[in-house]
């Protein structure tokens, strides 16, 4: 049976700089925001992709949702190709894959009322014949919003309310896969809990699979079955969420996990400090691209790029000298 989603060494390339800059100053003509990523998702599963800004996680999400063209590799949803589709096929796909965007208020069309926003999916796919008001009320109920909110406009909603409207719109046509780009970004801590509870509840009730894109590690524990850590357009580690939290094998994973201080003064974090900053995609380091910042760097790391290899327990790591469980 085909997996729900299959991505095979996907590459998304963006043109950059100018032709003149290229010929005279030898500036590169393009950058690979996603440089060879593979993953699979089974129905009902929730996968999280974690990474800092510039890691390419949002580009990956947009490529899977069929919103941007793909240069190499393939994306297949239930066996059928996703990337570079014709208009009609892509439209049908958008009923199956829905996306929730980062800015809760900014992802809602400013001139529309909440009612108009929630009716939009039905109008786009020619289902306006249904009783739209009933659908709107049903969706508002699903995400825990009072019917009275239907007449309000996006700028009259709080961050939490706007996020719920975004979720309601995404699940309007009962998609099989929901991609959430930074679902808790811009929300206060107390509201973040509400959003995570909502996503978990909908996952059970509607049997959704979810792809969560975030840089906030602490929310992953509560929502993602499996997770992958992305750096400069590639996965450096992937596996069971609880396992990775218990024992990260890639130095970058350890750095990310330990960079999330708990609100307890006595929780002495065993933190590894990273040197410098994320290198620019225009000047990708040689060998393992993380070697410039890695505290455990050795000679081999500078020449040879490590492949993403599976360990005995199925954990994927891209490091010549993965951290032993005892080490952390």
């Amino acid at each position, binding site marked *: 049976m085909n997996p729900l989603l299959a991505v095979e060494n996907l590459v998304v390339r963006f043109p950059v700089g100018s032709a003149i800059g290229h010929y005279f100053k030898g500036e590169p003509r393009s950058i690979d925001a996603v440089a060879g990523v593979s993953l699979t998702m089974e129905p009902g599963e929730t996968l999280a992709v974690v990474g800092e800004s510039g890691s390419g996680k949002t580009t990956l999400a947009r490529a899977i949702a069929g919103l941007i063209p793909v240069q190499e590799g393939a994306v297949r949803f239930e066996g059928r190709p996703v990337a570079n589709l014709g208009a009609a096929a892509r439209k049908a796909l958008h009923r199956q894959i829905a996306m929730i965007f980062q800015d809760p208020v900014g992802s809602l069309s400013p001139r529309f009322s909440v009612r108009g926003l929630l009716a939009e999916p039905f109008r786009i796919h020619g289902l306006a014949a249904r009783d739209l008001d009933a659908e709107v009320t049903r969706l508002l109920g699903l995400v825990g919003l009072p019917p009275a909110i239907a007449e309000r406009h996006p700028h009259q909603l709080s961050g939490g309310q706007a996020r719920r409207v975004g979720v309601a719109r995404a699940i309007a046509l009962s998609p099989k896969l929901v991609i959430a780009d930074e679902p808790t970004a811009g929300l206060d801590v*107390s509201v973040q*809990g509400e959003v995570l*509870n909502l996503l978990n*509840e909908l996952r059970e009730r509607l049997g959704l699979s979810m792809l969560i894109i975030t840089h906030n590690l602490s*929310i992953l524990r*509560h929502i993602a079955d499996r997770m992958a850590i992305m750096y400069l357009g590639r996965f450096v580690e992937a596996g069971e969420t609880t396992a990775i939290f218990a024992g990260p094998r890639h130095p970058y994973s350890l750095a990310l996990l330990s960079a999330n*201080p708990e609100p307890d*003064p006595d929780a002495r974090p065993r933190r590894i400090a990273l040197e410098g900053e994320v290198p620019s995609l225009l000047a990708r380091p040689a060998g393992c691209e993380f070697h410039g910042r890695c505290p455990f760097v050795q000679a081999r790391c500078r020449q040879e790029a490590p492949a993403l290899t599976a360990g005995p327990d199925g954990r994927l790591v891209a490091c010549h000298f993965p951290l032993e469980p005892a080490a952390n």
Partner: protein
Amino acid sequence: MSAPALAIEHLSVEYATAAGPLHALRDVGIEVAAGEIVGLVGESGCGKSTLIQAILRLLAPNAKITAGRMALAGVDLIGLDPEAMRKLRGDRMSVVFQDPMTALNPVLTIGRQMVDIQYRRREPRAQKRRRAIEMLKRVHIPDPESRFDQYPHEFSGGMRQRIAIAMALMAEPVLFIADEPTTALDATLEVATIELLKALQREIGCAILFVSHHLGVVAELCDRVNVMYAGEVVESGPVRPVFQRPQHPYTQRLLACDPARVHERTRHLPTIPGDLPDLVALPPGCVFADRCPKVFEPCRRAPPPAVKTAELEALRCYLGQPAS
């Protein structure tokens, strides 16, 4: 014992709005001793930014301080005339804001801006330039000599924030206000910036008022913390009692909600139901009453006074107080 770097007592600030006066800050008391790092924690809409603007006396035109005293190392700030206040800023008291991308002037080199803010010092330019480059080294800016004459857009977000910190600490102020300095940064960068702030504070010895809505960062960096809700300081004291044995129900819920604190996977993360109170038509009793799981009779009658307890400097809650 020298005067505290910052002493605020019973400070109230109101905004004139079409719907009537908005009570943004009510009876706020905060103290930052010399050489201490004090945290200010609260969610959006709790009055953190209004407080900072009040301290800097850079409030919006429709805002005014209606009550209270504010002193910077013993100097009264409220009574000061604008010109004297301007002289204080950037000399005895400096600030770093949240968004590094827009904090620096885009058309002036960082060197030019770092020399400009030393305008009070009667020194040759070369000396000011040396001090600026020295400061850039201390905030780990690689190769500061050549990057001195570069423009802000030629630096990454993380570096720009370190440059802003260097500018603020160059004058070795008495009080350094950090207004959510790491919120816009990635986690690994945030942690590195916190480590940098701790090191610089030990070297320079200035007091820091650190504002953030990231509880973990405050717990690691600060000696004492003030928790704010809807314009009031509801609980303040040393970091350990506040974070490990919080008394005020809001602080308890806030800590419970933080996903980083909940270790085992759960589908029902704690939340704080309800919305923020309307600060124009204030509720008669405690502002948190409608959302408080432990609300009881006195809470609706009158706002609880700030009371000192064994471990806390101030607790604005009737719980555990002798029945008044």
